[in-house]
């Protein structure tokens, strides 16, 4: 069953077209990855889906509802959110407050506490630093906090933006191992990563973006890494070698 359906959307910054007729589809329970180089338009696409960037054409449907023109806060309440890259933590708030913000829409304080416990179990490091300000976290810890905060909204579909951005390989491995646990809880995932082979390995379906367009898509297991490389960089450079 299709959970998120993006159809032919176009996004402009002024006169500059950042996203050109992009369509993607995410099925319930899947892990889908979106691959592309810096500047390919991945984050712009995510922000358009979440209602942060305005779309000029096309439609976004989530769980059968048209959310193209909806406010971000409403989209989150429907069960779709994104974990932005780690630099978007609430710097001047404690880790615990950052996480509790994720449960903003939850009115019961008992349930907020329960959700908090779940996140702490997933990322024990966050419990250790619960009373520290987010500004003192390292890059990998920020990434975990961002994902944890997004999970606090209890999303049906979670988008993880730039999940390995600037992180050391060990940390990336740790984050991906948590990602698996998250999917086991029944959360559908759309993962953005520059790390091609890793995202292919962890996902069921993949899209490759280049210069605002989807240039390649398919089942991750069927994808040939060299072909992805070519699509990723927009050249035939594997053949050149």
């Amino acid at each position, binding site marked *: 069953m299709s959970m998120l359906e993006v159809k032919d959307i176009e996004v402009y910054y002024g006169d500059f077209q950042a996203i050109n007729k992009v369509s993607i589809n995410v099925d319930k329970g899947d892990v889908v990855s979106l691959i592309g180089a810096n500047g390919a338009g991945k984050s712009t696409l995510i922000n358009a889906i979440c209602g942060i960037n305005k779309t000029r054409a096309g439609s976004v449907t989530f769980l059968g509802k048209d959310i193209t023109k909806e406010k971000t*806060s409403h989209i989150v309440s429907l069960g779709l959110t994104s974990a932005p890259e780690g630099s978007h933590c609430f710097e001047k708030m404690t880790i615990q*407050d950052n996480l509790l913000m994720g449960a903003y829409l939850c009115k019961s304080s008992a349930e907020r506490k329960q959700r908090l416990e779940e996140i702490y179990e997933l990322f024990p490091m966050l419990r250790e630093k619960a009373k520290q300000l987010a500004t003192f976290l390292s890059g990998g810890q920020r990434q975990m906090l961002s994902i944890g905060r997004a999970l606090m909204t209890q999303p049906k579909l979670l988008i993880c933006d730039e999940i390995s951005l600037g992180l050391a390989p060990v940390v990336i491995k740790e984050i991906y191992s948590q990602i698996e646990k998250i999917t086991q809880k029944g959360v559908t995932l759309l993962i953005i990563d520059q790390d091609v082979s890793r995202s292919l390995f962890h996902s069921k379906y993949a899209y490759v973006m280049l210069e605002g367009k989807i240039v390649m898509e398919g089942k991750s297991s069927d994808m040939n890494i060299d072909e992805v490389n070519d699509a990723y960089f927009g050249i035939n450079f594997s053949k050149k070698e």
Partner: protein
Amino acid sequence: MLQYLVQGILLGGLYAIIGIGMSLVFGIMRLTNLAHGDLMILSSYTALTFCELLGGNLILAAILTIITMIIVGFFIQGFLLNNILDKGSEPALLVTFGVSVFLANLLHKIFSADYRGLANSLSNTKVISTPAVSISAMYLFSFLVAILLITGLHLVMQYTNFGRSIRATSDNAMAASLTGVNTKKTYIYAMMLSMGVTAVSGVLIGCTYTFNASVGSSYLIIAFGVVVIGGMGSLVGTLVGGIVLGVAQLLGSYFFGSGVQMLVAYVVLLIVLATRPNGLFARGARK
């Protein structure tokens, strides 16, 4: 000397309340509300009007004033500022300047230039009356209200869902919206909160001093001074800022005469502005 010092500290409490409203708005939307002083005087006049209508029931009048100002805050943010904040900080700043001119002159037209005051029993009562120190109950009351307000707001900001959403929005509006916060609405709530506090400061000022339509701008400078000295957006800092200004003003009055007391306060403010533009207590500001 001791008299001036104590009175300065207590006056600082009153100044802190004036500053809180401005600090809230600045903290969350990085906007300096140039109409802040006039909005405060608007609440003084509102309280005066309610008081006259209710036959002198100041407490009820104060409550009605707070409600009125909260509604005013809703309109100012919802209909004016929310529509202009996207266009950059300068247009929004100038809108508040326009509102300031509009309000000051509207009040002048309605209430004339005569100085008015809110009659109350506290301002004539002395809590301490010794040869060295004599303290008016009104000053002490204002100071206690300031402490109560600051503590209350601090608790709300730190420990409630609502307070967290305000802090989160001021920290990173985009990330806040991704947790389900409607940022435009949060701005409205913040302005309503700010106006509620401003109403309190307006009533207290009306009880402590006489006022007319043109004094709003000097209270704006005080509010700004309090916020700058205490550090923009910091609640506890506001109290310190208020006390620094209050003491500077009254010691100025002690040493140089009451005519130049504000001059001393302004000079202190200028020194802080030039040397520690992020406030005395700003932890190494980012960026």
